[in-house]
C-alpha cells in the first residue's frame, strides 16, 4: 500500500488514534439519541399493549411470522459478516474485507426484499391502516393501534437499514477503492459497524414486539 494513502489526522486532532477514538465516541453519543428515539416508540407500544392486551393479541395474529424470523436470522448474520469484514480490515486482508462487506450489503438487501414481500402479504391480509384495512373479529377499535405501530416501527427501521447499506456501499465504492482503509486507520468502518449492529439491536426488540405477541 502506498504511504500517501495513509490519511493525515484532521487539523483539530493530534494523531490518527485520537481521531479514531473521537469518532467512535461520536457514534456512541449518536446512539444514545437513537436508543431513546426507538425506545420512545416502543414505549407507546408497551403502554397500549398493556391497556388493550386482547385487542393487540388478536390484531397481531396476522403478522407474518416466517418473514420476521427469516429477517431476524438475516440481520444477525449480517452483523457477524460486518464484524468479520472489520476484522479483515484490521488485519490488512483487503480482499477478504471486501468479500465480507459485499456479503453484508447483500444480506441487507435480502432483509429489505423479505420485508417488501411481507408488506405485500400484509396488503393482501388487509393489514394496512387506511389503505386496506379490515378489523378482525375481536380486535375492537384499539387493534388498529398495533398496526400503526407496526408500520411506523418497521418503516423507521427500514430507513435506518437503508442508510446503513448506503454507508457500506460508500465505503466499498469510494473509500476502499481509493485504498483509504488500512490497518493503521479503519475507523470509518468501525463506526459504520457499530451503527449496523445497533440497527440489528432494534430488530431484536421489534421481533418479539411484533411477531411473538398473539401467537399461542
Amino acid at each position, binding site marked *: 500500500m502506498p504511504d500517501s494513502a495513509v490519511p493525515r489526522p484532521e487539523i483539530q486532532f493530534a494523531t490518527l488514534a485520537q481521531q479514531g477514538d473521537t469518532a467512535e465516541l461520536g457514534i456512541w453519543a*449518536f446512539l444514545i439519541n437513537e436508543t431513546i428515539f426507538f425506545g420512545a416508540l416502543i414505549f407507546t407500544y408497551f403502554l397500549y399493549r398493556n391497556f388493550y392486551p386482547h385487542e393487540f393479541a388478536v390484531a397481531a395474529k396476522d403478522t407474518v411470522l416466517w418473514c420476521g424470523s427469516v429477517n431476524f436470522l438475516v440481520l444477525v448474520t449480517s452483523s457477524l459478516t460486518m464484524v468479520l469484514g472489520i476484522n479483515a480490515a484490521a488485519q490488512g486482508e483487503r480482499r477478504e474485507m471486501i468479500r465480507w462487506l459485499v456479503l453484508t450489503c447483500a444480506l441487507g438487501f435480502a432483509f429489505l426484499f423479505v420485508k417488501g414481500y411481507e408488506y405485500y402479504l400484509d396488503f393482501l391480509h388487509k393489514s394496512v391502516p387506511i389503505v386496506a384495512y379490515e378489523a378482525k373479529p375481536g380486535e375492537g377499535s384499539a387493534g388498529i393501534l398495533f398496526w*400503526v405501530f407496526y408500520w411506523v416501527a418497521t418503516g423507521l427501521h427500514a430507513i435506518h437499514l437503508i442508510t446503513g447499506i448506503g454507508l457500506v456501499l460508500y465505503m466499498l465504492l469510494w473509500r476502499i477503492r481509493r485504498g483509504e482503509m488500512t490497518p493503521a486507520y479503519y475507523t470509518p468502518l468501525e463506526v459504520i459497524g457499530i451503527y449496523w449492529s445497533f440497527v440489528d439491536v432494534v430488530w431484536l426488540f421489534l421481533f418479539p414486539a411484533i411477531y411473538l405477541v398473539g401467537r399461542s
Partner: protein
Amino acid sequence: MSVTTVERAAAGEPAEAEPSYLTAENTISSWLLTRDHKRIALLFFASITFFFFVGGMAATLMRLNLATPEGLLQPAVYNRMFTMHGIIMVWFFLIPSIPTTFGNFFIPLMIGARDLAFPRVNLLSWYVFNLSGLVVLFSLVMGGADTGWTFYTPLSTSFANGYVFAAAMAVFINGFSSIMTSLNFVVTIHRLRAPGMTWMRLPLFVWGIYSVSVVMLTATPVLAMDTFLLAVERVIGLGMFDPTHGGDAILWQHMFWFYSHPAVYIMILPSMGVISEVIPCYARRPIFGYAGMVIALMAIAFLSFFVWAHHMFVAGISIYSGVFFSLMTFFVAVPSAIKVFNWTVSLHKGSISFDAPMLYALGFVLLFTVGGVTGLMLATLPIDVDVHGTYFVIAHFHYIMVGATVSAYFAALHYWWPKITGRFYPEGWARFAAILTYVGFNLTFFPQFILGYLGMTRRSYTYPADWQSWNLLSSAGASILAVAYALPLLYLGWSLIWGRKAGPNPWRATGLEWALPSPPPEHNFARTPTVTLEPYSYDPEEGSFVTQEGTSHAR
C-alpha cells in the same frame, strides 16, 4: 486520555502573522462550505437573528391586537400568529441561540482546541437548521398552523386546519440540527481539551454548554418520535394519540413535555454560563463558589428530566403523579436559587464597572429571580391549578426565556463582540439599550402576572373590557422592548465598519479565548496552550489578573 497535545510543525511564526478567520478566504464558497467553527457560528448568527425578528414580528402583531378588546386581527390570524411566534421563538431562536453561536465560536477557543471534533457535522447542522427554517417559513407563508406551539392532540391531529404537518415536520427536522450540534459539543469537550484543562478548570460557560448538550442529546429524540407520530396521525387520520381508537391524548403531552420541559433548561443553562463569565470579569474577582456553580448546573440538567408533568397538573394525570412532579419541581428550584445567590455574592468585595455586558448580566439576575420565584408559585399545586393556562404562566416563562435568556444573549454578544469582530461596540448606546431592555421588559410582562391572576386566559384574541388598561400597558412596554431589541442591530452594524479597533484582551479577562488576537486566526492556536490555572483569577485589590495559561497581568 482526554487531552490533546499538538505542536504544529510550522509553529515558529508569531500568531499575529496568521490572517484572521474573517479574512483568510473571501469567496462565497469559502463561507458556505467552511468547516471553521467560527465561520459556522456566524452563519448560525445570521439565521438566528433573522428568525428572532420573524418571531418578534408575530409578537408585535399579537400585542397590537391585544391593545384593545375588539382586536385588530381576524381570530384565525391571531391564532396563527401566536402559534408561529411560539414555534419560531422556541425552536428557531431560543434553543439554538447561545449554543450554536457563542457555543460554536468559543467552546474550542475556551478549551484550547483547533476546532470542534466533527466540523463537517457542524456545517451540516447549519444546513439542516436552515432546511427546517424553510419548512417553518413555508408553513407560515401558507397561512401557519393554529394549534399553539404545543400541538396538543387531538386538536392538532384531527381538528386544526392550518399547516400543522409542515410545522411539525419543521420541528422534527430542527431536532436533527440540535442533536448534531450537541453531539459535537459533548464529544469535543470530552476529547479535545488542551493539556491541563481539567474538568474543574473549565470556564463555567463550557460547563453550561456541556450540560445543555447532554440535555439536548437525551431529550430531543423523544420529541422527534413524538412529532413523527403526530405527523403520521395527521396524515393518515388515526394513530397513537387518537381517543376514538382508544389512544390517550395525554400521552402526547407526556412525550412532548419530556422534551419541552428540559428544553426550558436548554434555553437557560447556556445563559447561566454566559452570566458566570461576565460577572467575574466586570466585578474583577473570582466567581463565588465555582464548584457549587458546576454542581448546580449539572443538578439542574439532571433534575430537569423529572419535572415535566408540572405542565400537566390539571390535564387529568393521576394526583399522586402531580404530587411527585411538584416535589421534583421544588427540588430543581434549589440549584437555581444557589446560582442566583452565588452570582449576587460574586459582587461582594469586587471592583465593579457597569459596562453594557454587566448591565445585561445584572438585569438577567433580577429577571431570573422574578421568573424563578413565580416558578416556585407555579410549582405549588393549588396555585398552578388556578393560574395554569393564564397570563400568569405567560409572564413567568417570558421572564425566564425572554427576560433572562435574551438578556444573557445580548450580554454575550456585547462581551464577545470585540473578539468576534475585532471592533468595540459604542458603549453609550449599548448601556442605553441594556437599560431600555430592562424597563421595556418589565413594563411588558409584569402586568401579565396581574392579568393572569385575575383570570385572563392565554391564546385568546379577545378579553373582557375591564382588563384593557393592563393590556394597554403591556402593549406599550412591548413597543419599548421592540426598540431596545432592534437598537443593537443598528449600532453593532455601525461598529463593524466605524467601531474602534479592539486589542486581543480589551476586558482584561482570563479565559483562553482572550489569549488570541481579535479576531482569532483561522486555526485558533498556533501552539496548543497548556493550562495551569482555574478560571477567573482576578484580583480586585491589585486590579491584576492571571490568564488560564499562567500569564499574569498587572494593573
